[in-house]
């Protein structure tokens, strides 16, 4: 028997183990690209700034930082978007949810009772079929069925002798 907390923890552990290295690699790669792109411009700007360290520097700093931030976001938004889309696609492709169990149905007084102690949602690895996590879904459901009365108004039998 596993409750929702254990189910979420197991799913989290598996996603973490699978995706954490890729996220880390993506972050490092993005950081390197930002550094590669920004460093020469920062260096050039600092050189220029030292030369022109006069009162007119402030608007230039503002303009430069605005442009730099815009450039970096423009450049990195594409790879980050692709990374997120690919990650979601991989997650959906990796896991297969399965609902399984046995529902016991019996007739009770003025109703039908549905019960199940072994119905569960299983999350499996699609490739191997290995169970990653399981969430029990106990069922206890009663459907009320009222009595039905049929009125027989006039049933006429006409017997013919053979």
């Amino acid at each position, binding site marked *: 028997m596993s409750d929702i907390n254990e189910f979420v923890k197991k799913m989290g552990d598996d996603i973490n183990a699978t995706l954490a290295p890729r996220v880390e690699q993506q972050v490092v790669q993005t950081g390197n690209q930002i550094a590669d792109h920004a460093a020469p411009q920062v260096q050039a700007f600092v050189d220029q700034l030292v030369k022109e360290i006069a009162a007119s520097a402030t608007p230039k700093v503002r303009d430069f930082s605005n442009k730099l931030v815009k450039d970096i976001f423009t450049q990195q938004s594409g790879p980050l978007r692709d990374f997120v889309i690919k990650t979601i696609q991989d997650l959906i492709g990796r896991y297969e949810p399965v609902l399984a169990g046995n529902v016991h149905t019996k*007739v*009770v007084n003025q109703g039908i009772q549905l019960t199940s102690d072994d119905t569960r949602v299983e999350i499996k690895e699609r490739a191997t079929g290995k169970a990653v996590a399981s969430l029990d879904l106990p069922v206890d459901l009663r459907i009320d069925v009222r009595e039905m009365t049929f009125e027989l108004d006039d049933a006429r039998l*006409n017997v013919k002798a053979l």
Partner: protein
Amino acid sequence: MSIIGNLITELIERNDVVIKGAITVGLADGAVKLSADLRTEVQDRNNHNKPVARMLIPMSARAVVDEMVIPVRIPRR
């Protein structure tokens, strides 16, 4: 055919049997129950459907239904 045979044949053919009443179907523990109170009347067709005989037929029946196990698997294998 004998006289009695002719008599029975004529009696059968000139009379209608009319059934009226209520039939109730419900669920009880482990069973479907059926009960009915039927009023049956034999009418003389050649005499303006005059009632010849009346019968009351109370009925009570019970069909036992065992527990059913429905295997669930979504998606199917």
